């Protein structure tokens, strides 16, 4: 891999790259094109929102998004100059950037609360998420993303994955402003009409507009995934830390339980739990969480066992550091990267498991727009050859899961560098 350290920003890097095209790996180009393509599509999406939304809200959302992103961008530029001139430390500069982002977002939220109280929550989420996304894209285009740029193609893969994920989350949040019809409304058009100008992705067998459903349908899946990952992370990591640092009987008992859950076919266990708990976002999230706690436990445990034996931990012990300090200040920071990688993969697994649960009939009530359910319901029309009712919701699931998998793949190389292959 050639020197990626010299690269600043996508457009600038294009210039610097054109000289040595051969030295770029194919993988670098794949990541590069996904990143640029996605950035462009987010910007085009914003324009569509601004131009064609049903209400004033869409335009206001876009303005809010751009304001947050631009203020952040200005703050970033200024702090960078100050850091370069030595007036600020690096961490101080970063803290200021984060603070500016938070304050601007808070301003927008406050404005939304006073001006449009009915949809303030959705509006705020949309604007902040959008602001974040656009800020990241601006950083990418103008500066090269500061954290990942030095890591070469793995950095681009991670960026591409994260961009996919955030864009899809953003799309779901703003869907009510950009979807041409109400997602749950039936008979808005002919039944099972193939993709056409009036219905760009076709219609379902209930005459619903598929485009509207595809735009809206990620919300349940994302909610379930986020909830279950939070539960998994906050149980799996502390449990593994506590058990494996102390060792002894507790460790062995916990490992045995975790191993026996891990040995189970995950989906079958999730199906069994979910069947007992009944449908619902929280119940689905819980049944998925139970299945994936062991993957955190195993990774964190093996990390703790390795780190515990390292000289710097032994030195801390010899100096008489309290075990609380050893665990939280010496061990935890060093295993967080691998826990984050597990978390990213866990997101993909949670999404696929949610889709699987929905597919076997343990999902949400019928009329809630959800990609998993649309795909399942679309299958009933299989014999008519109506490919669009299966293809589009399915592709969205694949894209979302792929985003998380790519992010995990990239972060794995960026955060936990191993010997170069």
């Amino acid at each position, binding site marked *: 891999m050639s020197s990626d350290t010299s690269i600043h920003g996508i457009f600038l890097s294009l210039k610097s790259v054109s000289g040595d095209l051969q030295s770029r*790996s*194919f*993988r670098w180009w*794949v990541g590069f094109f996904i990143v640029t393509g996605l950035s462009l599509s987010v910007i085009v999406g914003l324009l569509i929102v601004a131009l064609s939304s049903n209400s004033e809200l869409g335009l206001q959302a876009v303005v809010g998004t751009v304001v947050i992103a631009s203020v952040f961008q200005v703050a970033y530029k200024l702090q960078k100059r100050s850091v370069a001139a030595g007036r600020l430390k690096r961490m101080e500069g970063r803290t200021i950037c984060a603070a500016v982002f938070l304050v601007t977002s808070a301003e927008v939220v406050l404005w939304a609360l006073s001006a449009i109280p009915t949809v303030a929550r959705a509006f705020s989420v949309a604007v902040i998420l959008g602001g974040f996304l656009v800020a990241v894209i601006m950083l990418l285009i103008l500066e090269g993303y500061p954290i990942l740029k030095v890591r070469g193609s793995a950095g681009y893969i991670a960026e591409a994955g994260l961009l996919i994920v955030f864009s899809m989350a953003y799309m779901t949040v703003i869907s009510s402003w950009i979807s041409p019809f109400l997602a749950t409304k039936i008979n808005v058009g002919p039944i099972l009409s193939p993709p056409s100008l009036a219905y760009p992705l076709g219609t379902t067998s209930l005459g619903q507009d598929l485009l509207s459903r595809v735009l809206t349908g990620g919300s349940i899946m994302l909610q379930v995934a986020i909830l279950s990952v939070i539960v998994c992370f906050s149980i799996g990591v502390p449990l593994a830390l506590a058990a494996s640092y102390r060792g002894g009987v507790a460790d062995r008992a916990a490992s*045995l*339980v975790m*191993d*026996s*859950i891990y*040995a*189970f*076919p*995950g*989906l*079958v*266990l999730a*199906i*069994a*739990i979910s*069947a*007992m*708990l*009944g449908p619902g976002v929280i119940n689905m999230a819980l049944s998925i969480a139970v299945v994936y706690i062991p993957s955190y436990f195993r990774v964190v445990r093996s990390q703790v066992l390795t780190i515990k034996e390292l000289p710097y931990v032994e030195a801390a012990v010899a100096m008489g550091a309290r075990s609380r300090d050893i665990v939280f200040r010496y061990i935890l920071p060093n295993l967080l990267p691998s826990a984050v990688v597990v978390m990213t993969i866990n997101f*993909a697994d949670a999404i*696929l498991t949610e*889709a*699987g649960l929905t*597919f*076997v*009939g*343990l999902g949400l009530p019928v009329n809630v727009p959800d990609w*998993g359910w649309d*795909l*399942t319901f*679309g*299958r009933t029309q*299989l*014999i008519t*050859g109506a*490919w669009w009712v*299966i*293809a589009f919701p*399915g592709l969205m*699931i*694949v894209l979302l*899961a*792929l985003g*998380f*998998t*790519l992010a995990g*793949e990239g972060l794995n190389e960026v955060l936990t560098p191993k010997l170069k*292959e």
Partner: protein
Amino acid sequence: MTLRSYVVSRLLLTIPMIMLLVTLVFIILRIVPGDPASLHFEKHVDPVVLAAFRHEFGLDLPIWEQYVNYLASLFRLDLGVSMGSSRTPIVYAIVTRFPATLELAIYSMLFAVLFGIALGIKSSKKYGSATDTSIRLFGIITYAIPVFFLGSVLQIIFAVWLHWVPSGGRFENAFLAYQPPTITGLYTIDSLLTGNLFAFVVSLKCLILPSVTLGTVLCGIFVRLTRTNMLETLRMDFVVAAEARGLPENVVTMSYAFKNAFLPILTMIGLQFAALLAGAVLTETTFNWQGLGTFLVDSINSRDYTAVQGIVVFFGVLVTLVSLVVDLFYAYLDPRIRL
């Protein structure tokens, strides 16, 4: 440690694993709010009927007594009877349904392993090239595809549009008269055993789509594993030496490098068995394949909780036993593990 003592200790370790697993299933199905009996009837039901039902399935006993009964009947290989009106013994249902799942599992695993290894070797030999990246991307994408989505896409293309293969089922309805008699329950093997080539072709045609679907979803891990291991082995001295002696490339790749990269792949086959069963549940539902997976889904839809419990226990024990066999086989092949 000798091989024998390793085998004994590994066997002894399996017993608490299975106990734990069985207990886990019991806890999940009893501790959650709402007992199986009232969940089974779902809507309002005559309290007398409900009480009688509870009594019949022993759900009116104290929880520890239920647990002891459950363990005792498991020990006798009795999984209880179905909550449906037929009251079929669950063991009977599992025995009749399992061959279908087994057949699907074998062919899918075969496809996944062969396809995955082939791609992995290709990828490792072209390290760093566009082919390498494409194959790795393919591996990542297969991981992100829900198996029933891939199944549906293949169904639409090859069954609905092209009519090459049937869209589901284990045997084409038009040829039911040729269905082989049940010996092992695996149609492809039964038809070969009875010398019925036509039935063999028909059942193989039904098998292609489901096993390619499940195999593709599983093959990503084999691609990655083969690639990493091959990259390591290809760099070793004995491979370089073999190349230097002028041996043909294929011989070096296959009988020098791959032979040594194969052991971790073998372990992975065992580890993937759980994923295989989970995938089989969805694949069977997609292709209307009358195996354990469809049985599980049917039981959930008819709220038959004894059946759900039975199938989940069966799956769990099966996975434990398979990993036992793989570990023992691994110990037999690789003497280092016994140290």
